[in-house]
């Protein structure tokens, strides 16, 4: 077991203790006089309307999954960064791996261009993922 990570664990422990202490202390120290008005959600001071358990737009899901994809794509490059510009490797390796990374990134660029082209990250409902851009005919879309 490598000991160099133990201080990080200690930091986590200290951070967790501080966070828990802060949240529980106010719970312990403060007065508790609950009233129906305090117990209802605050929505601009008017009667809460409807239920907060609403479904939300698929947009957020799309952003999250695209984030996962692009994040994984970058993750593969991090280890390369530590050997690319370092005395550990020779010039041949540097040039070869740089070419490989360019090929790798070219598919990144294709994917990114597709994402922008179909408007997957447009927040405007009229332009995002429009059937025309996805190559569908109007009949298919309906």
């Amino acid at each position, binding site marked *: 077991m490598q000991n160099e*990570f133990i201080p990080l664990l200690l930091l986590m422990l200290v951070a967790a203790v501080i966070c828990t202490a802060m949240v529980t202390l106010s719970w312990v120290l403060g007065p508790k006089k609950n009233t129906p008005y305090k117990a209802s959600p605050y929505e601009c001071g008017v009667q809460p309307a409807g239920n907060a358990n609403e479904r*939300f737009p698929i947009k957020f899901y799309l952003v999250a*999954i695209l984030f996962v994809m692009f*994040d994984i794509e970058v993750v593969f490059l991090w280890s*390369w960064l530590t050997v690319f510009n370092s005395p550990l490797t020779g010039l041949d*390796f540097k040039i070869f791996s740089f070419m490989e990374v360019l*090929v790798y990134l070219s*598919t990144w660029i294709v994917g990114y261009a597709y994402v922008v082209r179909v408007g997957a990250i447009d927040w405007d409902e009229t332009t995002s*993922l429009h059937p025309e851009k996805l190559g569908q005919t109007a009949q298919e879309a309906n």
Partner: protein
Amino acid sequence: MSASEIGFLALALLAVIGAAGVVLIDNPVRSALCLVLNFFVLGFIYFTLGAPMIGITQIMVYAGAIMVLFLFVIMMLKRQGAMAKPDKPDSRLGLAVVLGLALAVTVYATVIAPQGVTLPLGIKDYGTPQAVGVSLFTNFVWPFEVVSVLLLVGIVGSIMLAKRRI
């Protein structure tokens, strides 16, 4: 007991608590939270095994990215509080317990009993970023390039899933 052992036991305990929480808790959001805890602690267990690169990838990709997606998916479905429980106990439960016990006995008989309880040892410098980087571009160039194509397919596929009508 040495510091390393205490560290490993604490991490392992947290990981097991997280994993048990995923299975035992009814509320899907809380269950997902337990999974985040499990992934996070798992990353640290990788660290202690001398594989920092895979550990940090675990935290970054699983705890930081994929679980956000999970939470979104859970929250996107209309929440109904806890999942409905079946009226009578599931008959498969007994089978699961038997199989689980059998696995535990097998692990004990084949691994723990002959070797005794020792700390897992990682190979030195096997999982450092430098080692991973060099091997990615020497032995695993083709898989590395294929991964990019796979991710491209993933991007296109996720957009196809999210479009208005299929």
